[in-house]
């Protein structure tokens, strides 16, 4: 079942067309990977899925992005509510300069979720969901910046899932991490996909091949090919995809 349907999306930074006529269906509780060389539009596309590009002056989108059938670019869209449903994890871990607990509790407090549920429970569940609980449970008051980078990234994932999103967007979530921390995040993604729809941008093709169910290949603002990951990495239909993933174009 489709969680997100993108229909004929164009995206411009001023006069520059960063995305041209992109259509894609993103399956619910699937991991969809977006690959392509730098500047191909994959991060722009990711940021269109929760309107993170809105804040950029001169940026505008055309076309439709349907989340559960509702166009998120419709004029009456509540962007804050949208971003609660579609959370994001960034390239470098960016914990707030607060305690582990306060980092995770941040979203629920801002959104007033803690009025409906025990804040401690939300924090524990979120940290468990991000497979960080066992490592931090004895000292939830410790400074988030005292954690290792890999732990910090899992903390950011815990912070993202604390507001009970439906979709998690990940923009190169492992590029600042060492190989072991990277594999931990990849394992975590497999657990998260039981509950969440995940879209990940990655420069690491092996990572896309390892973690995702579907892969989209972007080139010069266009979606060249979109298919099951198993097919993309063994017998892609497009020569350009073949050239890119075999390292002969890019």
């Amino acid at each position, binding site marked *: 079942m489709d969680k997100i349907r993108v229909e004929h999306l164009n995206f411009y930074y001023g006069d520059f067309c960063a995305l041209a006529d992109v259509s894609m269906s993103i399956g619910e509780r699937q991991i969809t990977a977006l690959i392509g060389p730098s500047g191909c539009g994959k991060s722009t596309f990711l940021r269109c899925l929760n309107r993170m590009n809105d804040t950029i002056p001169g940026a505008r989108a055309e076309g439709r992005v349907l989340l559960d059938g509702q166009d998120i670019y419709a004029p009456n869209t509540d962007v804050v509510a949208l971003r609660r449903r579609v959370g994001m994890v960034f390239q470098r871990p960016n914990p707030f300069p607060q305690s582990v607990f306060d980092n995770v509790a941040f979203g629920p407090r801002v959104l007033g979720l803690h009025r409906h549920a025990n804040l401690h429970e939300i924090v524990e569940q979120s940290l468990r969901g991000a497979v960080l609980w066992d490592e931090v449970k004895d000292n939830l008051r410790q400074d988030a910046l005292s954690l290792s980078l890999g732990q910090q990234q899992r903390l950011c994932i815990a912070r993202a899932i604390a507001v009970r999103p439906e979709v998690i967007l990940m923009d190169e979530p492992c590029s600042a991490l060492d190989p072991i921390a990277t594999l931990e995040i990849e394992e975590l993604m497999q657990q998260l996909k039981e509950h969440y729809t995940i879209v990940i941008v990655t420069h690491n*093709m*092996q990572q896309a*091949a390892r973690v995702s169910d579907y892969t989209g290949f972007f080139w010069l603002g266009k979606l060249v090919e979109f298919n099951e990951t198993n097919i993309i*990495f*063994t*017998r*892609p239909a497009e020569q350009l*995809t*073949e050239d890119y*993933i*075999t*390292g*002969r*174009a*890019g």
Partner: protein
Amino acid sequence: MTRETFDRELQRLQDEMLALGSIVEETLGESVNTLKRRDLEASSRLIERDRYINERRFQIESDALILIATQQPMAGDLRIIAAIIEIVAELERIGDYAKGIATINVRIGHQPLIKPLIDIPLMAQKACSMLHRALDSFVRRDVELARSIPAEDDEVDALYNQVYRELMTYIIADPRHIEQANHLLWVAHNLERAADRTINICERVVFTVTGQLAELNRGEEEKETGIESLH
């Protein structure tokens, strides 16, 4: 962006596989030639050669695994390497059949042959020709050629049936022929199996080019004879 180091290694792997293919093809042909001319010494040398064929096969397989581990090949590159691993295994098996034929020549020893060898050398020629063109189709990435070879298996099967029937008449005529007739039947059987292995190689060529893993149509003969059920 280019991948010169990787491309060079991938080419070297293919060259190694083809070199192994040439050795195996020559060994298979020679195994029957030495049987025909009753050259026991040459057969012994062919038996020795099998060890060398096996070593080269393992070396290629090992190099292929290293290339996968160190270069993370994808798509077409990955299919080439996967096909090479399969094809060298088939080549090694064909080498084993040749060794089997050479061993039979040594076992028959100095006894005279119970019959002149005519169909068996024809089978060998046919099997070698199929193997040669199967490897050629790999080099040229020629799917049509790869798909056309399996139909020739009918001729090999027909010759096998011919040899089988003929040897049965020798056995019935004189039970003292049983042992050698049985040996010669094994020779024909090995050649028939070598042709079957060649069809597997053709399937890997189709896979390398198209990404499709499918059995190629073998001849109809096999289904009709019933001899297959005796193996």
